């Protein structure tokens, strides 16, 4: 059976892994390659690297660390951050990234998804969506440029509509970052993830809010996602990946051990 995936996310800023609370106040966690290698050894199924400053500051991911990661780790990884063109995507893939994740640039120019799919196939195109619950309108909406608080802005997209749109244009995977809960470790937004799962025919990765092993169990059993992404619980040593996977397996979730 296909295993559910545990995906540590390493937010990268200036070549270091950082972690903020609700996308702000970033603190340095450590160097990229040793952290990636450690997670791979601990049983991570895949890694995601977000260059969180790239989109907001119009910079592109520093490519040198992409090939260093590819040389040293033997599990798949995805690179995100400021990829706006076919050439930029090709470069990341050529350096050894298995997937590229597009977020803000796809909102600025949705046709980028079509063009990436035509060039590389949908299997390596992940779309990151920063979604938040808007209490005023009782709806889920998409934000853009979340890497920099000053640059972050609302979009006209309701989350459901954007999820449909990116699939129609040819993405191979969706990473749903639920912003209200990111970094505060109060659990994944099960209601929102289950809503998106129902309209998502490509693999869905839940992101934002993991604090305990029970949160992971809930998101797999109640929201039916394919993978769960988390950062701080792993970086801070609150949850060990191997122990987490044993716990999930013991509770009936298919896991690679």
């Amino acid at each position, binding site marked *: *059976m*296909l*295993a*559910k*995936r545990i995906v540590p996310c390493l937010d990268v800023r200036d070549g270091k892994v950082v972690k903020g609370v609700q996308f702000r106040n970033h603190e340095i966690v450590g160097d990229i390659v040793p952290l990636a290698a450690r997670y*791979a050894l601990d049983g991570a*199924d*895949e890694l995601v690297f977000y260059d969180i400053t790239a989109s907001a500051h119009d910079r592109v991911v520093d490519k040198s660390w992409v*090939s260093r990661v*590819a*040389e*040293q780790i*033997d*599990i*798949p990884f995805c690179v995100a951050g400021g990829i706006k063109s076919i050439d930029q995507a*090709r470069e990341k*893939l*050529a*350096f*050894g990234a*298995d997937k590229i994740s597009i977020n803000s640039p796809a909102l600025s120019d949705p046709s980028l998804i079509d063009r990436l799919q035509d*060039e*590389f*196939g*949908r*299997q*390596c195109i992940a779309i990151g969506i920063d979604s938040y619950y808007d209490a005023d309108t009782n709806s889920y909406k998409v934000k853009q440029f979340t890497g920099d608080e000053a640059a972050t802005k609302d979009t006209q997209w309701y989350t459901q509509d954007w999820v449909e749109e990116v699939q129609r244009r040819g993405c*191979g*995977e969706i990473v749903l970052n639920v912003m209200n809960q990111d970094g505060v470790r109060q659990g994944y937004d099960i209601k929102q993830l289950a809503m998106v799962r129902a309209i*998502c*025919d*490509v*693999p*869905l990765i839940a992101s934002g809010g993991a604090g305990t092993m029970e949160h992971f169990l809930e998101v797999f059993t109640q929201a039916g996602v*394919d*993978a769960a992404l988390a950062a701080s619980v792993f970086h801070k040593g609150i949850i060990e990946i191997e122990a987490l996977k044993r716990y999930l397996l013991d509770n009936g979730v298919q896991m*690679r051990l």
Partner: protein
Amino acid sequence: MSQSDTIIIDTGCANLSSVRYAFERIGADVEVSDDIDKIKAATRVVLPGVGTARAAMQALKDKALIDTISSLTQPVLGVCLGMQMLTRASQERGDKQRDCECLGLIDTNIERLDSKGLPLPHMGWNQISPGDHPLFAGVAEGSYVYFVHSYRAPLGDFTIAKCEYGEGFSAAIAKDNFMGVQFHPEKSAAVGATILRNFMKMNAGSFTGNHKSMKENTL
């Protein structure tokens, strides 16, 4: 001039370095090349690939490599799309009206995976049932390897490892010296490294007799 004993064919596809790095991690002497003489002289040849069958086959045509690959008698390992290119044809059509003609070295066709409603692409770590082909020596039943694909080879005489996602399909296929894996051994942690090491133990002498397929042995 000396050359590496294992050549990774430069298909112009995007995952070349990942495949090279994986061989280098197990200490193998590999070289990425599209030089016809080097490919012919190699002890082993790897055919990598991501993207669409049509683009990859076009790249082989542009480099005049089709006849070269077909004539090889040493071990050849196709990875992911590289495996699919070893078959007769792929139904992955892109914007074209016809199926994409492939190398025709293994007698099967690539068709869309019928996932029975499960998300596609089939992406992530899935379990395989290997047969007794030497490529899978030491790989246990139920081992996890990493897949990313939406098209697949069906089960048949050529199947040397099975997988299931909605339906059963070939995780690996082989005919004589031509072998292909649908999954990515270069991204499949220790299990993938075992498979690559097994490949590195092979040479042209490994294929004097045909290997029995899974169907003959286990089905």
